[in-house]
């Protein structure tokens, strides 16, 4: 290829109009994304479609396919309780994660030793798999756990693990996701907040004023995005609630997995129905978050 052609073909990073881009180059550009798109489409679209078909009785393990909503009504009451319980657990842990994560991001922003300490400690908890987080939260919070031993609480130790309020489950999610939220928010703040903060300070804004009018608006998009990801994760995640929760009532993923592994023939469609409900609520949460983001001037 002559050098001039190389220059024009390879070095135009973002043509402003599609017309500035040859059809061949455009197709080549699109082709680059094809392998990733095919895999994701197979898993996400294919998986969702198959699970919806199973839940509607179109793919029974035995017998004739027949369209029905029986799987959705089979555990009607429990399904609704599961939705409420999962929403409550995910909501509580997300609120905690956002508050703690935002505070951590503010400290990280200050630099110096305390910022570095908090940044290092929060990165430490990021690569912890959730099942390990759940196991170690159990070792910390159970009635024979480290805290009960250290405080000498014996019988007076509350039912944190497996208790009525799902405290250990909420704690594990809040712990892991607060580090996630903190690092994401600190990442966005670091690139843009210093100048604005100084300008605000020069104009006479106090600490609270800067927090309210500069730092919070600047972090809001990152806070919404990371909060939503954390919410959807804790809403649809199985292992933590399974390990640290109680047998009944069940959050949606625990209920879905129990039905999925059940030997009853009708259980598969019922498990699929629970999965569909989980997916619909998750998608709803994502759409609500996107709608909120659109209202924020900074996002555009």
């Amino acid at each position: 290829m002559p050098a001039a052609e190389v220059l024009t073909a390879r070095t135009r990073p973002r043509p402003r109009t599609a017309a500035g881009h040859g059809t061949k180059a455009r197709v080549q550009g699109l082709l680059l994304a094809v392998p990733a798109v095919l895999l994701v489409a197979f898993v996400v679209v294919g998986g969702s479609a198959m699970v919806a078909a199973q839940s509607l009785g179109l793919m029974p393990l035995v017998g004739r396919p027949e369209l029905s909503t029986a799987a959705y009504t089979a555990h009607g009451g429990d399904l609704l309780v599961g939705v409420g319980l999962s929403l409550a657990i995910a909501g509580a842990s997300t609120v905690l994660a956002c508050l703690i994560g935002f505070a951590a991001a503010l400290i990280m922003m200050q630099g110096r030793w305390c910022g570095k300490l908090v940044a290092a400690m929060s990165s430490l908890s990021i690569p912890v798999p959730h099942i390990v987080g759940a196991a170690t939260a159990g070792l910390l919070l159970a009635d024979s756990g480290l805290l009960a031993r250290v405080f000498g609480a014996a019988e007076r130790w509350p039912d944190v693990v497996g208790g009525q309020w799902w405290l250990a489950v909420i704690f594990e999610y809040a712990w892991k996701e607060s580090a996630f939220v903190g690092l994401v928010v600190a990442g966005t703040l670091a690139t843009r907040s210093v100048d604005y903060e100084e300008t605000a300070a020069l104009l006479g804004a106090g600490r609270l004023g800067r927090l309210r009018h500069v730092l919070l608006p600047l972090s809001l998009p990152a806070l919404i995005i990371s909060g939503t990801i954390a919410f959807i994760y804790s809403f649809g995640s199985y292992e933590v609630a399974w390990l640290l929760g109680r047998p009944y009532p069940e959050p949606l993923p625990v209920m879905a997995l129990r039905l999925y592994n059940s030997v009853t023939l009708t259980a598969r469609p019922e498990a699929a129905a629970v999965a569909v409900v989980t997916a619909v609520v998750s998608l709803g949460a994502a759409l609500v978050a996107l709608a909120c983001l659109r209202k924020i001037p900074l996002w555009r």
Partner: protein
Amino acid sequence: MAITLPPGLNQQTLPKDAAQSGLTRSRAGGRILRSATAGALAVWFVLPLVPLGLWVFADRWSYPAPLPQDWGLQNVDSALSRGAATAFAGSLGLGLVVSAVATPLGVLAARSLAFHPSRWSAPVSALLFAPLALPAFVAVFGLNVLLVRLQVPSYAGVVLVLTVYALPYTTYVMRLAYAAHDIGFDEEACTLGATQGQVFLRVQFPLIAPALARAAFLAFLVGWSDYLVTLLIGGGSLVTVPLLVASAASGAGNDGIVAVLSVMALVPPLGLLLGLTGRRRRGGWS
């Protein structure tokens, strides 16, 4: 989703020491408050890991003793006799394979999104981020039927699903890297007579190498941390450390073994993380 990961995990996110100028410096009271908050947050992030450090070396630690009564390495032996070494190899392999597949695919997708914008770019990136909004078990319930009918080996099935759940991270990290990529360097090299291959090897690759390492690390973590996909699609044929942790933690009286297995699950990613950060500090990467 297998795990939630911040894309800038080992990126320089903190302002430099000088970032706090005289204008925004806090007064003495504020400094004390800040140090106290920082201390509390550090405890919050580290406290859950403390029992692991104690239980690993606790040969005997009966309730209600606040500290182990006998120290030793019996728990390590018990964990090894439960197949910890095989599971470790399984986890390592899975993390590496997912990383090896999801990183190049993410690079290609990010190149397409960054350098070839078209009307398809928006739907493509929406689709690539869709796994973040779909709980993994939902996709697995649906796919299991398909994978069995298509006779896909279970290992390939696990890798496929985990790759898809790693793609949002690899694509996003590389997309950011390409957005900051100064095309002027490529042009300069071209005018100086570099071939395409030379431009890639000598110019583009060094520029994107740190982002590439980050993307590969995040994809590795997705494979390394996964529990549910490995359990449901692997169907027991593939044993990884998270699976052993779960089976030990769900039984009673295994606290020491749980701790050893958990530490095993933590060491490789933490080592990689330190390696990546240390390398950046030494100035190996920009």
